[in-house]
């Protein structure tokens, strides 16, 4: 269970509070206007930003002392999810061996992950030789190997077309299912929330509201969400 316990994030001219829990295995969309603090929230959970107050806990354990790499978290950024000078297989292998000295067993696991995500035979390529969808798949293959219990998506598929994005979300659902991961996904698109996530967190006016059932939330949107949807 992810517990944001009276978390306050501040930057000059910006303040965001969050106080809620997310159940293990849940799939949660995070929606709200630009600049409201959706990415800030994910970056705090991933360990890149430090809350001004409050605690972030996973399974009862405070994450504050843990660096980004030590947290039970895999995060997919908007871009720069792959090192362009490493091959796809090396990029994926980093999920098992951070010093890039994979064992034979690791390499076999990398192969399986590439097959699983539809990238069989592409391991020797560089990221520049992949399409946008394939690059997303490679990042998900690494997430599959890392098998961390929290999967954070900071709009990694925003640049893809609608059909491709649906494919990728389906793959995310499969990866999350296999690893039992809790998924938090930032999105601009209400359809993503409705199609993918059982619950939705609305971030607006300095508050990350507790997650609500996506269907009921959109059936009777509060004023802030209504303003955003237009």
């Amino acid at each position, binding site marked *: 269970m992810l517990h944001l316990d009276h978390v306050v994030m501040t930057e000059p001219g910006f303040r965001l509070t969050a106080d809620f829990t997310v159940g293990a295995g849940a799939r949660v969309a995070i929606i709200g206007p630009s600049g409201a603090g959706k990415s800030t929230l994910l970056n705090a959970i991933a360990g*890149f930003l430090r809350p001004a107050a409050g605690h972030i806990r996973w399974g009862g354990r405070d994450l504050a002392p843990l*660096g980004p790499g030590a947290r039970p978290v895999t*995060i997919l950024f908007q871009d*720069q*999810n792959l090192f362009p*000078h*490493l091959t796809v297989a090396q990029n994926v292998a980093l999920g098992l061996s*951070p*010093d*890039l000295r994979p064992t034979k067993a690791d390499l076999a696991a990398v192969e399986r992950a590439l097959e699983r995500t539809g990238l069989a035979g592409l391991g020797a390529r560089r990221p520049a030789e992949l399409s946008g969808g394939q690059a997303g798949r490679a990042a998900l293959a690494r997430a599959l190997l890392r098998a961390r219990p929290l999967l954070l998506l900071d709009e990694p598929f925003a640049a893809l077309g609608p059909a491709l994005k649906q494919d990728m979300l389906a793959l995310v659902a499969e990866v999350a299912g296999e690893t039992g991961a809790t998924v938090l996904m930032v999105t601009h698109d209400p359809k993503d929330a409705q199609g993918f996530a059982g619950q939705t967190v609305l971030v607006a006016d300095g508050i990350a509201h507790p997650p609500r059932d996506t269907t009921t939330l959109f059936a009777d949107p509060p004023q802030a969400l209504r303003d955003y949807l237009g």
Partner: protein
Amino acid sequence: MSHAPGAAVIAALVAGLTLGLAAMVAAGAGSLWPLPADWAALRFTVWQAALSAAFSCLLAVPVARALARRRFAGRGALIALMGAPFLLPVIVAVLGLLAVFGRSGVVSDALALAGLPPLSIYGLHGVVLAHVFLNLPLVTRMLLMGWEAIPAERFRLAQSLAMPEGAMFRHLEGPMLRAVLPGAAVVVFTLCLGSFAVALTLGGGPGATTVELAIYQALRFDYAPARAAALALIQFALGAGAVALGWAVLRQAGFGAGLGRRLAVPAPRGWRLGADALALVLAGGFLLVPLGAVGLRGLAGLGDLPAGMWAALGRSVAVALTSTAVTMGAALVLALAVARGARGWRFIDAVATLPLAVSGLVLGTGLFLTVKPWVRPEALALPVTVMVNALLSLPYAYRLLLPEARALHADYDRLAQSLSLRGMARLRWLVVPRLARPIGFGAGVAAALSMGDLGVITLFAGESGATLPLYVQRLMGAYRMEAAAGAALVLVATSFALFALFDGIGRRAAP
């Protein structure tokens, strides 16, 4: 905010060496008041640097403008040639200028045919000529970048409004020149303030002695360490003053890339085409003829290279490789720490620029005074040269690495952190591959600068133990011009080979 203990130690070392040696100089000078000759050296230093900066900037404008608005076969080669003098050993440039403008040079021969007396290249005009030769290309490249940075849309807008050429100059090119030229002038002025090798070979005498040259003469000929220290203090004040004055500009001083943009500047026909062609031919000739003359004389001189030359070459290569390794290691650690905003990064950033304020001879005088009571200076000639060269190349190497290190941090730090990629693995799999190009280029620049340096070694070297530039200078002093040209050819070939080697490794290793 993260700690950067390695960078802090290196920064402390650099600051300690630079300021510590300046303090040694100050202590050595005691309360010695400068002599009239010292004031004359100071006046000459500032005057020649000002003239050199003014001529380099004025002459660069038509050349850069012609390069900016014309496309022709060999344009790329000409721009590449403009990058060469920065890496050219100064002694080689001087030999080339002597071969063309010297008493027995090409121009004097032509004058003799017409019954006129030969030129004399020694003195103020020779020093300024050499400085313009070395710095005109640098300013040309800076201005060319300025021209290419003016958005093409502005020129199109001006053309679509049928703006006459004068107005276009006032609104587009004038503001760019006002922004770039002062900085270029400060850079050239600062470089020329510390001029030693040019003054040593083309200057001298009461009318044409720079402070640097006066330091050398005080230490080597008059054996007056206190006088040398007093002069070194003046030189340090000059250098520090110039760096403080041009801090904003010098911090940004880079080499720039991306000179292959599409044609944006309107290219008028008619007499202006002729004027541009003339500017390019004159500039190209001014650079190429002296270099060609060294090449020709050098080829002739290759036949009777003195035996001692090869040992001097070996010493120079060893000095260049060692100082390059030290410089690049230090520059990389400092640039990575500053890029990630580690604790004290502003201090580290300032320290990495600090060596610009000192010259080789100021550091050399400080070191001379420090070691003199304990060891014979000759015994330390090479280690001292390595250290001083490493220190003096550091600002350039650091400025080359910093923007790339910042981009690396912005693009991949979060990903590397989230994957626990750190320590040696991070260096091997992320930093070195991503920074291979600037590391290779920076190492090439550092190696070429160190290879061609004729500065601190003159204070320390004994009869034997000269580096190759000093060896060439001694051959010149003995009027063995043929052999000097041969050795100079070996020197320049080795300098550019080292540059090409490191730059090539960097390019090949880059993804």
